[in-house]
């Protein structure tokens, strides 16, 4: 689906001055239908990696291939859900969801039907005519997700979409996202700094450390998705040990 081959990104501070290396030697292949969480400390380059996948940034070195073609610019086939929903405040919820469809030349009744279907899917049927400012944070993120789902992007890029929400809303939306992933089978690249979130959502966890991929952990798909289950807690513990090796965490958690 998407492949990073020896990808690096660096910024030059100016003529003759030092260069800031953001990412180096990223090699990653994500297959169709995978739910991949990118985990790491703040400033490790998680969001940059996602921006590269979206086509907002171009790598300084290496190539990023999507469906075997190099990514040169943003594309509706790689829809992004931003940390702040980034809805257009002058459009209603329906207008926001239909915006991408309009750009793709889908007109009139067909567009309205797609919008209605996604409003229902995300539990937003009552809010079609509302403006984004009248919605709660959780509802706005739902609209952001509905917008990308309506685009039918085979690859969904999610940049800490639930990090600004209260814990209850966050958990509810995580559950809904897992359901949608199960139904639609989209490939998801999900950036988070939350160990618990990554352990609960992901099929595969990429840990970014020191500007490159430190660990690539595959989660046993046969295990039940239960955030308080032993397997999930054990995985969280394992991730903590990888991310915080100096914290003297015991090898086996008491569960």
């Amino acid at each position, binding site marked *: 689906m998407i492949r990073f081959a020896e990808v690096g990104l660096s910024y030059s501070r100016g003529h003759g001055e030092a260069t800031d290396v953001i990412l180096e030697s990223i090699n990653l292949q994500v297959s169709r239908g995978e739910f991949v969480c990118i985990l790491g400390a703040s400033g490790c380059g998680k969001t940059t990696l996602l921006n590269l996948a979206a086509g*907002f940034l171009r790598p300084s070195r290496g190539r990023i291939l999507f469906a075997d073609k190099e990514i040169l610019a943003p594309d509706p086939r790689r*829809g*992004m859900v931003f940390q702040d929903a980034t809805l*257009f*405040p002058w459009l209603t919820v329906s207008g926001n969801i239909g*915006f991408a469809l309009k*750009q793709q030349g889908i007109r009139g009744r067909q567009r309205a039907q797609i919008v209605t279907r996604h409003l229902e899917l995300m539990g937003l049927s009552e809010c079609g005519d509302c403006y984004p400012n009248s919605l709660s944070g959780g509802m706005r993120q739902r609209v952001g997700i509905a917008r990308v789902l309506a685009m039918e992007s085979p690859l969904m890029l999610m940049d800490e979409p639930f990090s600004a929400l209260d814990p209850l809303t966050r958990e509810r939306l995580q559950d809904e996202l897992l359901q949608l992933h199960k139904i639609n089978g989209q490939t998801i690249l999900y950036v988070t700094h939350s160990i618990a979130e990554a352990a609960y959502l992901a099929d595969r966890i990429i840990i970014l450390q020191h500007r490159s991929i430190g660990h690539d952990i595959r989660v046993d798909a046969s295990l039940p998705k239960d955030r308080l289950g032993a397997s999930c807690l054990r995985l969280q513990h394992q991730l903590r040990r990888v991310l915080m090796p100096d914290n003297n965490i015991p090898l086996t958690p008491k569960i």
Partner: protein
Amino acid sequence: MSSPHPETLPTSPEGRTAKTAHQRWRLPHHLWLAGERLLPCAVILLIWTAVSLSVHFLRGVDMPTPWQTAKRLYSLLGGSTVAGSPLLLHLQASMLRWISGFSVAAFLGISFGLLAGSFPWFSRATRAIPQVLLMIPGLAWIPVALLLFGIGEKATLFMISVAAFAPMAINVRDGLRGVDPYLVRAARMMGTGRWSLFFQVLLPAALPAFLTGIRLSLGTAWRVLVAAEMVVGTGHGLGYAIMQSRWTLDYTAAFVCIALLCLIGLTLEAILLRIVEAKTIHRWNIAKERS
């Protein structure tokens, strides 16, 4: 145990529901709102009256009071003339100049702002122009206007346009450049083309700055118009009428013209801009989004 509902109103012996203090104050709510809006006008009129009376008693000079000004306005509307012409003719001449000057300034300012906001090289090359124009007071353009066009309509139009251009140009340019880059990213991610991005994302996102530009530009045009009419006017206009009234010692007519200038400015702002703002940025809450 049953307790009375907290919102149950006590009933009077006649069986009619007695009004609580809250309800008594609720009834004239609209009147209170109207009163709140009129309060600043009342304060201004009071201060005006106090100053007029003070000047009369302290210096022995007759400064028109609001009441005398209102009476003079009535007589002017009834047919008497100021500076040789009916008041409405002066008003018409000023409005025409104002609209023409503002239109030229708006066209040039918006065009400049759109170019500078869209093309960084154009912005870099022309950055100093609106900043320099902003520093020059409206009246300082008089010699330039006279040299370029002589006394007459063209000079007035030039002064209004050149002074009202800068606030419009700067606000449009900065409004476009200040659009949230994440909105642009979201639009590009959804496959938005160059023109759609401009018309469907950048322009609505920059609307608050555009409206600020229009507001400042209208105000500047209005102020410069009066100054221009005082000096390079052509026989009609409120500014010209104020100047002539001063020479003929008809200060009450001058006050009528000044009061009219304020009223027209306030009315236009209330009608044009507030309605547009209420239907757009307040409804969308763009200002809150940005903060």
